[in-house]
């Protein structure tokens, strides 16, 4: 062994410990989903044959299909609308740049400093006044316009050659046409990064849906798993299966789009 590789041993050990510590709870979650409650508490760390049994128990106790559907609807709806609203705003801030628009951006960024706790109750009352509690609209609306995502798209638009916009204008394309037909297709990786961020946040959101979705029929996956522990006896195998099912969509999305995600984040904070 050379001296150089010897010196990197502590770093490698540190890295390995960190990586194992990061992955282990996830491994525990997956394995426990296939074991009985007793096996989970008995610290069995090998896959068991209990997966189907756990799924049947979960289906009998909870309306899993409804929760999955509600979560999907909320997260997909939020992602689609947020991508549209935030990207068109980010594009607008950069391509139609003016001093006043910069000032507006500064004000919008201040919104990131407002803790959700400070707006939750008035938001709840606002939606209640319009009779919109337990609706998808009430879950989605506060999550559509995200300052960070607007910023992400503004930074991306900065690298978008202005000559293309000019050329398209000369060719007679309308402003909206330029955005739809040229900007969106060229900015795929930014859209992917933004989609990961928004979808994860929307899918995993807990407090706001819990507050606004009063009707049990509208409960989301995070609400469902949280409710699983409220009984007297918790079946840990069933719980871990539900937790796994809740985590799968965001983990798969991240693994599929992680390259674009890293690119988007790196580009945005240059």
């Amino acid at each position: 062994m050379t001296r150089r590789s010897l010196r990197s041993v502590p770093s490698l050990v540190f890295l390995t410990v960190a990586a194992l510590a990061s992955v282990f709870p996830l491994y525990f979650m997956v394995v426990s989903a296939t074991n009985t409650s007793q096996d989970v508490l008995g610290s069995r760390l090998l896959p068991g044959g209990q997966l189907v049994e756990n799924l049947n128990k979960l289906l009998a106790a909870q309306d899993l299909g409804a929760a999955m559907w509600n979560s999907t609807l909320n997260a997909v709806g939020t992602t689609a609308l947020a991508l549209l609203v935030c990207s068109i705003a980010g594009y607008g801030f950069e391509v139609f740049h003016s001093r006043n628009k910069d000032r507006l951006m500064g004000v919008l960024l201040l919104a990131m400093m407002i803790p959700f706790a400070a707006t939750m109750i008035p938001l709840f009352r606002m939606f209640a006044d319009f009779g919109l509690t337990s609706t998808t609209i009430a879950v989605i609306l506060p999550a559509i316009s995200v300052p960070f995502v607007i910023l992400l798209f503004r930074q991306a638009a900065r690298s978008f050659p202005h000559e293309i916009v000019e050329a398209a204008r000369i060719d007679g394309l309308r402003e909206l046409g330029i955005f739809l037909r040229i900007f969106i297709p060229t900015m795929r990786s930014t859209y992917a990064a933004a989609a990961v961020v928004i979808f994860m946040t929307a899918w995993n959101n807990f407090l706001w849906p819990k507050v606004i979705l009063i009707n049990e029929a509208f409960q989301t996956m995070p609400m469902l798993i949280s409710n699983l522990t409220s009984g007297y006896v918790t079946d840990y195998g069933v719980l871990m299966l539900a937790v796994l099912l809740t985590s799968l969509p965001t983990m798969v999305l991240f693994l599929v789009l992680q390259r674009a995600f890293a690119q988007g984040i790196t580009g945005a904070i240059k």
Partner: protein
Amino acid sequence: MSTQLTPVAPAADRQDERPPSGRGFSSLGGRRSLTGWVFLLPAALLILVMNFWPMFQAFILSLQTGRGAQLSFAEPLWFNYQRMLADQTFWMTLRTTLLYLVIQVPIMLVLALILANILNNPRLRFKGMWRTAIFLPCAVSLVSYALVFRTMFATDGLVNDVLTGMNLIDSPINWLGQTQTAQFVIIVGLLWRWTGYNMVFYLAGLQNIDHSTVEAAKVDGANSVKTFWYVTLPQLKPMILLTAIMSTNGTIQLFDESYNLTAGGPAYTSMSVSHYLYEVSFVQNPNFGYAAAISYVILVIVALLAAIQLKVGDKRD
């Protein structure tokens, strides 16, 4: 919605200034500028109605008392704030939240910095694998991981079995049933969930550092620790500031873990201030006015800490 991403606005250091747009809306430039405003309108309106307006409403609400929809201005106006001063539970949850903040955030940021620095080594192999492994916890929802940790730290759970197996403890520890251990489990959970997230920001920051500055320090005979301390770290300062503000915001708004991991127990001693606010607003006797007053204290603390960090972080040396 939740606290996941909150970076600071970069200064307006645009490389290419566009020609100024026309004055009147009749000119071509003016019409374009108007189109630009139309592009911003939906986003700006939504932020106004969903963030700023409720924030203003919360302040009005914090001056009111009553149950449900029957609200009237309090007598005196600051009654809710007065009540807060005498509310032992409020102070306890606020202290606990600040305790999480002071212990967890510095440890997490140092760990993230070390990991990013190791991962940035050009000679390291399987970079993608390491990065994915360390970031993966961030893809899991807060509720999910809180329940996984709750299961692992159950009295008859995995952690106690391992510790007993290694003869480190004689009898199982009631992790979630005692104040200090319950707080400890929340801190460990936060470290697990967020270290990789901050590491990604540091990695991005390291990639934007000009490598020749590091090489120059090496040529001048600086060892790797000195190079890191005097060359890399100062250039990462904006990113450290960003992550510090994000983590501070996130920790002060901590809810999911407190609610799902320890349920705030035992006896409210691991409860976060946001969790307490939820209890006041929607559990037991809902009291929106009082809850709004608590939320305003959280708002002021977030703003104060951000201002302090910006002040400290912005000092030019």
